[in-house]
Every structure is written in structure tokens, then in C-alpha cells.
């Protein structure tokens, strides 16, 4: 009777424990060719004041920004963004922030600043005071779009897009490689953003067995090409 009980216990443990507990790995490889786009930080205020061109300057443009999001993938890495407040300008005008991301507001002036954070659809804004020559961190724990308004210069606004995912990979010019070794089996969605606009979306499944899945893309002139499946973005 005693040996029978030991047998049942061993059998139960064998049934309850998985055969393999290791997660799958995905390898991302994106060849990115950044183009130029209109500078989103460019202030374009039609305030009615008189002005006349004095110096001829080229149109101000900046490189495109691309980001890769994997929805449903929960990473332990926290991502912070830093927004400097100098004069009447935030250093960044648009922020793509992962869920639970933190923005650090850095006041470069010698007087206190006050910023107002207003979530889209909400009526109650949150006011954050930033002391002179100091920084304040503000976490964003709910997905959605936020407007951050300078209390002194009301036209100075940052738009923050807080994603449902907490994984954001910012692409650079050239070949970008990223290995995600600890992705658990399940269904995921890979999204590519240009700035704060989504330009590509692809769903994929990670199987329970230990294997490596490769994702190879090419981004050029605002278009995304999946080199594995030869599918292109709709953009």
C-alpha cells in the first residue's frame, strides 16, 4: 500500500509538470533606411505678428523615427523618456511610450515650471510642478493618448501615446538586430510605427517547443517589406 502511494505521487508529478519549460526565441532583423520628414518639433504658430524673410534657409527637416512594438509581450525592461523644458519649448513634441513607461521632465530654466497632463477623454487634468533646474518623473500606467501642456507657454505641448504593450524598440539607420529569447508561447502582434503612426502590423504565434523564429523586414521610404513572407505594409 505504501509503495502504491509513492507510485501515484510520482505519476501525478509527471502529469502536472511540463516536459519542457523553456520559452521560444524570436530574432528580429530590420534594415532601415531613414528618410527626411517635416520636423515635428517645428513650431508653426500663426500669431498674426508682422515678419519678413531676411535670411534664406533650407526647409527644416529631420530624420524619420521608426519603432517596433510587440503587443502581448511583457518585458521587465522599463523604458524612460526624457523631456527637457527650455524656454518655451519641450525638447520632444511626440512620445511613443510603452505601458508603465516614465517620462522625466527636466526644467532647464531658473524659475519653476508647471505642466498639465490631460488624458484624452478625461476632464480632470493632472498638474505637475517642476522646480528650477530640477527634474520630475511622471509614470504613465494606462494606455491612451495624453497631452502635456506647458503652464507658462500654452502653445508648448507634448503628445504622449502610451501603448498597450510595454515593449518598444526604436530603430536606427541601417541594419537593426534584436533577439528576444524569453518570449513565452502564445499569440503576438508585431507593429511598426513611424513617429506615432502605425504603418505595419503582423500577428504571429510562438509555439510551446523550443525553437527560433526569424523576422526580417526592410523599411524604405516609409514602406515596410517582410522579406520572409514578401508581404509589404499597406502604407
Amino acid at each position, binding site marked *: 500500500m505504501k509503495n502504491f502511494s509513492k507510485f501515484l505521487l510520482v505519476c501525478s508529478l509527471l502529469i502536472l509538470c511540463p516536459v519542457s519549460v523553456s520559452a521560444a526565441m524570436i530574432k528580429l532583423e530590420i534594415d532601415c533606411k531613414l528618410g527626411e520628414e517635416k520636423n515635428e518639433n517645428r513650431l508653426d504658430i500663426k500669431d498674426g505678428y508682422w*515678419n519678413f524673410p531676411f535670411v534664406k534657409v533650407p526647409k527644416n527637416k529631420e530624420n524619420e523615427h521608426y519603432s517596433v512594438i510587440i503587443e502581448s509581450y511583457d518585458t521587465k525592461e522599463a523604458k524612460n523618456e526624457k523631456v527637457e523644458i527650455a*524656454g518655451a*519649448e519641450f525638447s520632444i513634441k511626440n512620445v511613443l511610450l510603452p505601458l508603465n513607461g516614465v517620462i522625466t521632465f527636466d526644467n532647464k530654466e531658473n524659475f519653476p515650471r508647471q505642466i498639465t497632463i490631460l488624458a484624452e477623454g478625461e476632464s480632470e487634468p493632472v498638474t505637475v510642478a517642476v522646480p528650477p533646474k530640477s527634474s520630475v518623473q511622471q509614470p504613465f500606467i494606462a494606455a491612451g493618448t495624453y497631452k502635456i501642456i506647458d503652464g507658462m507657454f500654452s502653445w508648448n505641448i507634448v503628445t504622449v501615446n502610451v501603448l498597450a504593450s510595454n515593449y518598444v524598440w526604436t530603430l536606427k539607420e541601417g541594419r537593426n538586430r534584436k533577439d528576444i529569447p524569453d518570449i513565452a508561447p502564445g499569440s503576438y502582434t508585431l507593429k511598426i510605427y513611424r513617429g506615432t503612426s502605425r504603418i505595419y502590423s503582423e500577428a504571429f504565434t510562438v509555439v510551446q517547443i523550443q525553437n527560433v523564429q526569424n523576422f526580417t523586414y526592410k523599411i524604405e521610404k516609409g514602406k515596410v517589406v517582410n522579406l520572409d513572407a514578401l508581404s509589404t505594409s499597406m502604407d
Partner: protein
Amino acid sequence: MAVVITALSAANFLLFKDFIVKIDVQDGAKNIAKLAESELKSKNYSLIGNSFEIARQIKIEKGKVTSKANSEKDYAIVGGNGAVLDGNFKVMNSYAGIPAVERALKDGSASDGMFSTGSDLYLIGVAPVLADGKLFAVITFEKFGDDLLSVFPMPVRAFRGSEQIAEKGGDTWHSVENSYGKDNLNADMAALVTSGGQKELNAWTRVSAFAMPYDLAGGEKITIVTMTSLIPGWESYSKVRFNVILYSVIAILVALFFTFIVTHEIDKILKKLASDISRMRVGEKLVLKKYSNGADIVVSAMNKLIQQYLELSEDVGSITSSPLLRAEKNKGGDDFDAAVPDPFGTGSVEEIKAEKPVHAEMPKKEAPKQEVKPEPAKPDLSHTMPAQLEDDDDDEDNEKTQIAATVAPSVQANPFDVLWEEYCRIKRKHGESVSEKEKTAFIGKVRTNKASIMAKYKCSDVQFSVEEKDGKPVVKAKPVN
């Protein structure tokens, strides 16, 4: 009279008010606001000009300012990212994001603008500077406050949003507050700040508002409210209205007072004239110079009437002197052939002198009226003889009032009859008989002589008198001018 004056005052007030309102048809208040706007714009342009002047002086090498600029105005030089590189005035470490600075650094344009940090508001003029292929900017500052508003020639209030931040002409504003009401004025100001335009505070005082350019993304609006008084110094409409009413009432009272004085005086003069007329005897005239204020016209007219009456009587007398004479004439047939002694004897015309009429003592008021009696005291036969009217009761009145006495030329007091009676009396005195037939001839002779004497001596009248000489009556004539 009072009603007329009141009506005229009211009409004058309304006309004047209407006139003032019509002045506003020329958009006076609106033009004043435009003038203020232009003054402000001009100020901003001067700031841009100053920035260019500084840009001309400085030298930038490798991102650093190596040559300083002299400027009486506050200025700052900023790099391409808006950070301050140099200058004599620093509000912020960076002017990035200020629209005028952005236009200079990103577009290479010079422009004006404004910004505020906390309670301070600054007007700025920004000029771009190209050095080493990079854009820099020079910013000139002017703090927005009471000093800046001194450029405006009229009372001005400046609002940032709904908050008043500067004012010019405080005394005038306060007087309007006292007159118009502080709460009313504040309510009108709030409406103007919100929607602009102009508002009539009272008939003569208006306020107009214009907003300075501001960012359309929601920046605070700077509103300038100007006050225009169509009549300088008449901002206190209520006080002016009170004063106008007060002065009108005073004017009416003064007019009433003088009206009373004048009417009283006229009444007094007319009463006196009536009194003098009541004391006049037939043939008397009033002395013109003793009357005024319209009574002199009446006296003149009366004297003329009397003169005409006398002349008429004389003319009538020459034909039919009296009913009695007419009866005699009818009964006696032609009397003109009767022998009549020469009443003038040996030329009895007195030497002519330019002398005034002889003043004769006139009978008293109680003296018998209208009738001339030959028997009583010898009357003076002056035809037109001014005489001092005696009045025992009132000597003062006698001094003022002179009545020109004349023998009444009526049927009863015909001077020729009197003369004839005197002539007869002397005749009878010496036992000579006189027939009534001689009378017509006598009077005709006297008339003829009178006419000839008047023509000869160019006088206006002739006084006749009868004197006794050697027991015979002699008629003497005296020319009167």
C-alpha cells in the same frame, strides 16, 4: 418767459448732444483705438530695428560672440537651439519656442512678438543673424507696463486675459468709475476683453478695444482698451449733466429776475406817463427827454398828435372860429368890408432872437380847464409857450416832469379870440365902442400878419400880445423859433 428759456435751454442741450453724437459718426473712438494700435506696432518695429542695429555690431565666430554690442535697450543673442549666448538682459536660459525667435532661427525672418514669464510681459523684436552658415538671433526686449503705455495719448488699460496688467490715465478712469459706476465699467471692460469692439459709456465717452496678435493655439490674449472722450475733460458725464441743469436753472432765475426788473420799470414809467397825461391841460405837450424805455416813443407820438390837433384847430378857426362866429357871419352877411383898425399900430414886431420859448407860470391843476376868461388875471398869450408845471404837492415830480403849456386853440380858448377880447377891453376902457363886425377883420389881419412875419423871419410861430399905448390898443408880435 421762463417756459421759453427752459425750452431753449433744453433744445440747446439736445442739439449739442446730437452734435456730439454726430461727431462719432466719423468713427472718432474707433480711430483712436487704431491710433493706439499703430503706436504699439510702431513700438514693436522699433524693437526689430534695434535688433538689426545690434546684429550689425556683433561678430560671431565658432558659435561664440566675440564682439559686443552697445545698446540702451535690453537685448540677448541666442544660438540655433534658442540658448542664450550673450546679451545684457536675461529672462530665460533659452528662448526656444518663442514664436518670433523660432521664425528667426528656423525661417530666417525678422519679426516682432511678445512673451510672458509669470507676471512679467515683454514685447520683443527679433532679427536673424547668419554666421558661419548657422542662424543666430538677436532679441530686443521692452517690458510691457505703465511705462510702455505712456506712448499712448489717451487713457488706456491693458489686460492679459481678463486680468488688468497696466493702466494709463488713472485719474480719468477713476472719474469715469465715479460717474458711470465701477461695477458697470468693469462689466463693460470684461465684455470688451472677450469680444472686442467698442462701448458707449455715456453720450460723450466711449471705450474701444483691440487685441494684440497672439498664438492661435490658446495663448493668452493681450487686450488694449482705450477711452475716448469726445469733449476733452468731460468724462464725468453725470457731473456735467448736473452742472448743465444747475446752470440752466440759474440762468432761468437770472432771466426771471431781470424780466421782473424790466417789466416793473416799464410799468412804473407808464404809470408816471399816465399820471402826467391825466394832469395835462388842453394844448400842453410832454417833454420828450424826460421819458425812456418806450415811453418816449409814446410821448413823441402824443406830441405829434397834439401838434396836428392844434394845427387843425387853427385851420378850422380861420374859417369858422366858433359856432357863435358862424352865427354872426350868417346873420351879418359880408363882414370883410367893415372898417377895422390896424391892430399892429406902428410896426410892433419885436426883434428876433434865437431864444427859447418863454417859460410861463402855468395855472395850478385846480385852475379852470379848457375855458379862457378874459376878465380874470391877464393871461399870457403865448401861442406855444413851455411852462414849468407847478405842483405844490410834489416838487420832485415837478423837477422831472415838464409840460409844454400852450393856450388852447379851441373855440373857447382861441388865442385870436383872446387877443380880440383884450383889444376890445382896451378900447372900451377909453370909451370907444367896438362892434362885433370888426372882429373878423381883426382876426383876419392878425392871421395875415402872422403869416407874413413867419415868412419874413423864418420862424415857426409868432406870439401876439395887446398893449395899451397912448390910450389905444396896439398888437405886438414876437417871432418864436
